[in-house]
């Protein structure tokens, strides 16, 4: 037996290819949507893994530092170091900001870290680590910065000395790493006018500007301009200790919130990304319905265009199951053409997305399965029409 579906597809190949391309673009969008979601989850996991921390100590009653703002005094880490099981503890700051690069603004997450401690970028794809304690940065390649380039962050110019890869915040902004002191200044320091104003106000306060106590005013001014806050303390747990146990001790004794990596992942993936996940899921459902409608419509109209041939096929003894199989195969064939095109375009255009798109083979398999189911359902209407064709109409009046 020859494949009636295959012959019909070859005969109408242009129609199939054009419809297949349309369907393929839809499937490509669908796969990309799934890839964007996977990319967000993966970004979050990379973010947590690359920080090198086992525990995040943050301001009480916050989900900081990624999901909510958190502020700690920058000496809190010393107290944490005293807790049994803590191998290392270091201050970090996170600040989302715009950096001007020539004509364009780059939105980045500026990470302040202490070189050689948790929070430092784990690997570089180019350049070197930060060696001086000021005015050097390591940037993610997604920022578009080049080695040796000078970028302005707030009041100072920084030199890009190293590049990392896949270091993005939970909202997809590429990271720029800079020394903690610089970062604190960028985040907490007031601008020059504010400082001048405040100095004038402080100096005009007779309680603070006492003629009999030299040096008092200077000490007060210094403390006002110093930046003493950080957003989180990253903790590395010594081997042989349970992260959850250490976190519990931090919570109990230090009046801080502490999250283990599992809890942090839960916050990032389940809470922060959840809305996006629901948004994407809604999109996927709509795309599936649209695809089904397209396939159904095409297969249905093509079947209507073949009523005479179907009557002849029935008259000469073609069984119903052969006719149903023919239409089902055409529908699946269309789906397959669409899927191949969709997978191809999704792979081709993935690198051009501003956010990381992670195309998992498992998602492709699920997409293929969904395509097959959608196409099978879409063929039902056409099959119904085809089976109702009366062979007597082939003979005519």
């Amino acid at each position, binding site marked *: *037996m*020859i494949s*009636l579906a295959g*012959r*019909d597809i*070859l*005969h*109408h190949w242009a129609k199939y290819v054009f419809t297949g391309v349309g369907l393929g673009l839809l499937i490509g969008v669908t796969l990309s949507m799934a890839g964007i979601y996977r990319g967000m989850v993966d970004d979050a996991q990379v973010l947590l893994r690359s920080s090198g921390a086992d525990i995040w100590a943050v301001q009480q009653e916050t989900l900081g530092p990624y999901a909510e703002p958190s502020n700690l005094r920058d000496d809190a880490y010393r107290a944490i170091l005293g807790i049994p099981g803590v191998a290392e503890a270091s201050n970090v700051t996170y600040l989302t900001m715009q950096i001007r690069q020539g004509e364009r603004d780059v939105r980045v997450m500026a990470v302040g870290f202490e070189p050689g401690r948790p929070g430092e970028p784990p690997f570089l794809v180019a350049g070197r680590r930060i060696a001086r304690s000021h005015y050097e940065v390591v940037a993610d390649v997604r920022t578009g910065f080049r080695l040796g380039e000078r970028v302005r962050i707030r009041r100072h110019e920084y030199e890009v000395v190293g590049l990392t890869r896949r270091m993005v915040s939970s909202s997809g902004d590429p990271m720029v790493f800079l020394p903690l002191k610089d970062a604190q200044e960028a985040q907490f320091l007031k601008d020059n006018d504010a400082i001048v104003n405040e100095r004038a106000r402080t100096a005009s306060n007779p309680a603070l500007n006492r003629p009999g106590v030299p040096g008092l005013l200077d000490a007060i001014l210094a403390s006002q301009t110093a930046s003493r806050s950080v957003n989180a303390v990253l903790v590395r747990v010594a081997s042989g200790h349970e992260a959850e146990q250490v976190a519990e001790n931090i919570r109990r004794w230090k009046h801080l919130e502490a999250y283990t990596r599992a809890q942090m992942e839960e916050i990032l993936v389940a809470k922060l990304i959840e809305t996006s996940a629901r948004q994407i899921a809604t999109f996927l459902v709509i795309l599936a319905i649209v695809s089904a409608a397209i396939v159904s419509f095409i297969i249905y109209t093509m079947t209507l265009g073949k009523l*005479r*041939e179907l009557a*002849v*096929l*029935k*008259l*000469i*003894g*073609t*069984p119903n199951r*052969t006719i149903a199989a023919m239409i089902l195969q055409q529908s699946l064939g269309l789906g397959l053409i669409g899927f191949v095109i969709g997978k191809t375009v999704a792979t081709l255009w993935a690198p051009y997305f501003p956010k990381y798109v992670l195309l998992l083979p498992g998602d492709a398999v699920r997409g293929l399965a969904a395509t097959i189911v959608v196409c099978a359902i879409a063929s039902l209407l056409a099959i119904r029409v085809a089976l109702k064709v009366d*062979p*007597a109409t*082939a*003979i*005519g*009046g």
Partner: protein
Amino acid sequence: MDVPAIEVRGLSKRYGEGEAGVDALKGVDMRIAPGEVVGLIGPSGSGKSTLLKCLGAVIEPTGGYMALGGRTVFDGGWKIRDLRSLRRDNIGFVFQAPYLIPFLDVTDNVALLPMLAGKSNREARRQAAELLEALDVGHRAKAAPSELSGGEQQRVAIARALVNRPPVVLADEPTAPLDSERALNVMRILNRMAEQYRTAIIVVTHDEKIIPTFRRLYRIRDGRTFEEAGEGRAT
């Protein structure tokens, strides 16, 4: 006469119900021997197509008796379950328009029938090629139906009707779209095939050009058949 290829007694067909019903056939009697080619003539609306559809097991008669090759097919009701297989194995159809399957080439249009009957693709194509050769369209075997002339298409349709060697072929105005010479050529082919394969062929027609070729005719009037002798002129 030995076992008739087609035997019909008192066959009736009523379209619709009650007052609005139309009695298209009111008692048709026919007996056609294997290898015989008979004409079925009558004015428009006299029931020719209806009779052909009943004989082809495409619509259900209302009453009467019908046998193909001595096997009872209808006797007040269908006596055979799988009408599609019955059609596939016993009846060839030729229509006024050829109605070839546009997405199959000429060979496969013909070979499809033996394939449906379970023959291998090779064997089916061999049978198709043989018949196409006999009908002088062998040289168009790989062409698409749309590339053929009307006469060529009709010959392919005849090959399709004959390829399973059915004992009965039903042709509804097969020469209508053809000019006189081609129409006579189709009749020549049908007569040759009938003789060669012992096929009983009924040709519905009101084509004056071919009526003289029949040796025997059934004239249908007011839902009843009347047998007539034809001229039986050589084609």
